[in-house]
């Protein structure tokens, strides 16, 4: 099967751009580092769209490209798989990522470490692209970890900030917990089938697998939960806001957090194989969606609100997935990419306008006058997030509600709660940031973003409003070269009850937000003062952060105990102590008198012992 040039370009363009930038531009023209990278983004986007178009025509590709490692009859290969799932997500990631690149070029222009930023940024992008087109689990893992590495580098990009360092470390280590699960899953697959390519594994699954195969789905879910910030392991994502805003945008919209959901969608046959696991995923996802939505309502930092909102939406995707609606989950993933990118970039615009790296709600307000474009774009994103017809968010969120409705009232309640909460927190943010009362300082101080930042935001806002039109196309795309069952990939059909439920939830959220911010401007601050325990509860994520801190400090304490007390003092001390001990033993054994008489007595004793030994 011929591999189209576009596939090669997906890898070659970023690699070439990185090499050129690293070796030639960074040392000599650091200000130009981004140019080849932006060009590469364009090439990648073009290739991705080209591939999506090709796939739309019914073409798909699963091709082994080369041997990675081999021993005996055991081997792992490189390969690409371009099918409906990968091409749809790839197109979104490529385009949204490219736009964020453009934005970042403006946003980070002044930073002294601009080249370092851009190189890491593009590597991040490359890793995600590579992951999407992988045709086997090991290669997927390669890029999966590459994403993790870049997130480490970028979250901690401002190395001088202790919080950034801590957040990047936390992100990486937490992700490694998921990586551990992923790795174990791969080992089980290798042990069972001797192969990890998606097509082959799912094919062989029909003939059954070992008892360990049931674990694979679970382990993959753990991996996805760490990457896609599901409940027990979500905590790194809000903290990851310490990175520069474009990083957050890229991470939330395109490159990182979607990886987990994508993995589950990819490996859906494995997940569905385990009885009960889909419902577990749905429960965790729904729970996370509500949990994070509640927390998002209590945040004050613009980016943190968005971060919790991402967690909540990832939960919704997991909910859809768990209910067997992979297509809807992927659709929401794509739509979420558009509107979340716009929201983040707008938040970045605000911070940039304020001349800060992050902005708090208390510092903003009334920005509609000074930043009209940003306000417009943000509104578009917010509407999309809240799921108002006919924005992009509507199409996917309706699907989720429909899926929940079909599955049962409990699931429906979770989905609706998450939707209502989404409506609330995003409207609250919109009102407080743009419409609410200005803080003391003059709003005029704030300025609109420059063109290279505004243009991508505009495009993304447009997408957030209109991408819903693509949903049928995406639905058709997903079916091509599919590995999962047809019904799991089916999208929702419009129905009035669902429309009514979803829209009313969003409206309820919006109304409540208007009531809590515009009607009673002081409410948002006063409850924190009146109910300090509630404030504390929100700050600690309903106590979960404390649990995490406890676990971390327990691990650290264990390391201290083992490394310090057990290893160094006790065991090594024992070994080192053997030297003085043997010297002392020699001292006890020595005859200190030095008298001839004693010598003779010892000789006689020895003789007597010998005699006794011989005779007795």
């Amino acid at each position: 099967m011929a591999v189209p040039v576009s596939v090669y370009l997906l890898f070659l363009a970023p690699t070439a751009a990185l090499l050129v930038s690293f070796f030639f531009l960074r040392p000599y023209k650091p200000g130009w580092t981004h140019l080849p990278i932006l060009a590469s983004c364009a090439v990648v986007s073009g290739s991705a769209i080209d591939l999506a178009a090709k796939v739309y025509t019914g073409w798909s590709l699963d091709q082994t490209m080369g041997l990675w490692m081999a021993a005996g009859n055991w081997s792992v290969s490189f390969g690409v798989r371009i099918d409906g799932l990968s091409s749809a997500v790839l197109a979104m990631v490529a385009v949204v990522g490219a736009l964020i690149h453009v934005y970042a070029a403006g946003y980070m222009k002044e930073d002294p470490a601009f080249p370092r930023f851009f190189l890491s940024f593009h590597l991040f992008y490359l890793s995600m692209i590579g992951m999407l087109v992988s045709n086997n689990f090991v290669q997927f893992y390669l890029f999966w970890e590459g994403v993790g590495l870049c997130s480490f580098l970028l979250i901690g990009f401002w190395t001088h900030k202790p919080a950034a360092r801590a957040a990047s470390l936390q992100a990486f280590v937490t992700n490694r917990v998921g990586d551990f699960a992923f790795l174990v899953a791969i080992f089980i697959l290798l042990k069972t089938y001797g192969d990890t390519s998606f097509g082959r594994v799912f094919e062989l699954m029909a003939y059954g697998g070992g008892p360990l195969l049931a674990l694979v789905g679970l382990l993959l879910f753990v991996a996805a939960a760490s990457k896609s910030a599901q409940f027990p392991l979500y905590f790194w994502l809000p903290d990851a806001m310490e990175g520069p805003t474009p990083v957050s945008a890229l991470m939330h919209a395109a490159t990182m957090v979607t990886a987990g959901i994508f993995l589950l969608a990819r490996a859906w046959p494995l997940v569905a194989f385990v009885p009960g696991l889909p419902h577990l995923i749905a429960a965790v996802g729904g729970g996370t969606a509500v949990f994070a939505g509640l927390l998002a309502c209590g945040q004050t930092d613009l980016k943190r609100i968005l971060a919790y909102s991402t967690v909540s939406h990832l939960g919704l995707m997991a909910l859809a997935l768990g209910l067997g609606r992979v297509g809807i989950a992927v659709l929401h993933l794509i739509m979420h990419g558009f509107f979340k990118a716009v929201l983040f970039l707008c938040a970045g615009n605000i911070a940039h306008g304020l001349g800060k790296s992050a902005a708090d709600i208390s510092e903003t307000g009334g920005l509609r006058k000074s930043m009209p474009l940003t306000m417009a774009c943000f509104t578009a994103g917010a509407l999309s997030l809240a799921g108002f017809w006919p924005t992009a968010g509507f199409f996917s969120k309706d699907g989720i509600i429909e899926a929940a409705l079909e599955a049962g009232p409990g699931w429906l309640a979770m989905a609706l709660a998450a939707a209502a909460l989404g409506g609330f927190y995003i409207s609250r943010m919109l009102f407080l940031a743009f419409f609410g009362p200005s803080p003391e300082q003059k709003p005029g101080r704030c300025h609109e973003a420059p063109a290279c930042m505004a243009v991508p935001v505009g495009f993304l806002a447009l997408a957030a409003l209109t991408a819903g039109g693509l949903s049928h196309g995406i639905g058709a795309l997903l079916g091509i070269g599919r590995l999962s069952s047809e019904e799991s990939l089916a999208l929702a059909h419009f129905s009035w009850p669902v429309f009514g439920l979803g829209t009313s939830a969003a409206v309820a959220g919006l109304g409540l937000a208007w009531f809590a911010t515009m009607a009673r401007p002081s409410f948002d601050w006063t409850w924190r003062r009146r109910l300090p325990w509630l404030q504390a509860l929100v700050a600690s994520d309903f106590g979960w952060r404390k649990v995490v801190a406890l676990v971390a400090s327990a691990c650290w304490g264990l390391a201290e105990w083992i490394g310090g007390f057990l290893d160094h003092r006790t065991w090594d001390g024992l070994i080192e102590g053997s030297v003085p001990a043997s010297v002392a033993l020699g001292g006890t054994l020595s005859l200190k008198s030095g008298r001839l008489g004693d010598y003779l007595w010892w000789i006689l004793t020895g003789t007597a012992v010998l005699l006794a030994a011989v005779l007795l």
Partner: protein
Amino acid sequence: MLTALWLVPAVGGAACLFSSRKTSRLLSAVFAAAVFAYSLWLSVPYTADAGVWGVVESGPAWIFGIRYHLALDGLALSLVWLTSFLTVVSLAASWRGSFSAGFWASFLFLEAALMGVFLARDLFVFYVFWEATLIPMFFIIGLWGSEGRRHAAMKFFLFTFFGSLFMLVGLLALVTHEHAVSGVWTWDMGALAGTNPQGLAGTLMFAAFVIGFGVKIPLFPMHTWLPDAHTEAPAAGSIMLAGVMLKMGVYGFIRVLLPVFPRLSWELLPWVGGLACVNILYGSLCAMQQKDLKRLIAYSSVAHLGFCLLGVLSWTPEGVAGGSLQMLNHGITTGALFMMIGFLYERTHRRGLADYGELVGRAPWLTFFFGWAIMASIGLPGMNGFIGEFMSLAGMARALPFMAVVAALGIVLSAAYSLPAYQTVFWGASPAGSASSKVTDLDAREKVLVWLLCGLMLYIGLCPTPFLDVLAPSVAALVPYGFTP
């Protein structure tokens, strides 16, 4: 001419010893480079021959069944490469230091002894070279190390000698056992392979070998010499110590223990493999709380060698190949890390984590490369460390899945001990009185060296097949002895 591989450096060492300070440095470089070139050239006859033992060299029979017998297979070849390469790197890394002739000579002597270990096919010859490695390393640590060098050198020698005694007794018992069975006195590894002693005597022999090789690896709980030795050794010494000398233990497992005791090593896999798992977890946990960069890397070596051993013990092609490759990988990666710490130490004479901070601004290249090597060390896919660990654990997962799972926890811990240290030193705020102000970025010589090593890390990470191909015949020759499920 395999003899040349150890004789040339030995002669070179002697020549260095008796020449002046300047000349000896040059001389050592010439000899080391020649050996390296020769070791690369050796891959030609090696690959030309289809057999497992590409090049064999055998002397006349000696006393008591001992025979001077050297041979080169893929595994040995890869380690010969590593040795000659890291010797060149070590010498180049200490090029600017003011060392006496003995320093340069010691490295050549060390190279000679290591070559002998990897080439020997006769257990007696193997043991002689095995022990001979201790002498130059003793002097390297003791003469050119840092403050605690006297103590560390003694501890290193005594501790490893302790293990060697077990190995010696095991060897004697094995040879005697073989004589009792076959009526032939032989020390030849090939002849002893498949001897397969059983019962209590066999188990005791097996245990003696495990201790003998385990001390070198170092296998928990025989590891406590390692942090001291690595920490106090000069940078070049640490490179050789971690880069090559630790591999001797795993090499002994592959070369001697597994072929000789196939059944016992399969039956006792839960015990030995369990120790390797403890190595991984315990080493990582110890590394987490170290305040000294070199100690930290040293403990990380404890963990990494656990992966090697697990792979080798799995008796699967991928496990053995992965374990073998991991030896190479660990040599390159840890060698690079110790080298860079050496560069830092050269500038500031400090090693504490708390002595540094904010190096990213002062020494961007160093930051970049150190991060690179750290990533390779924690097994990031795309880097060499991943290939070794992945293949080892994949092999172990086929043998004893539970053990692979426990070992895989090490990848979480590796991030937890490496990255905080990296952040503290290179990213974090520079504390009061820190040595950071004295740090300058890498110069051209240092950069070339680091590029070489880091390039190899990436190359092996993405394209390990050339190396795996070299290893393949040895792996294929070993695995049939095994009792794979």
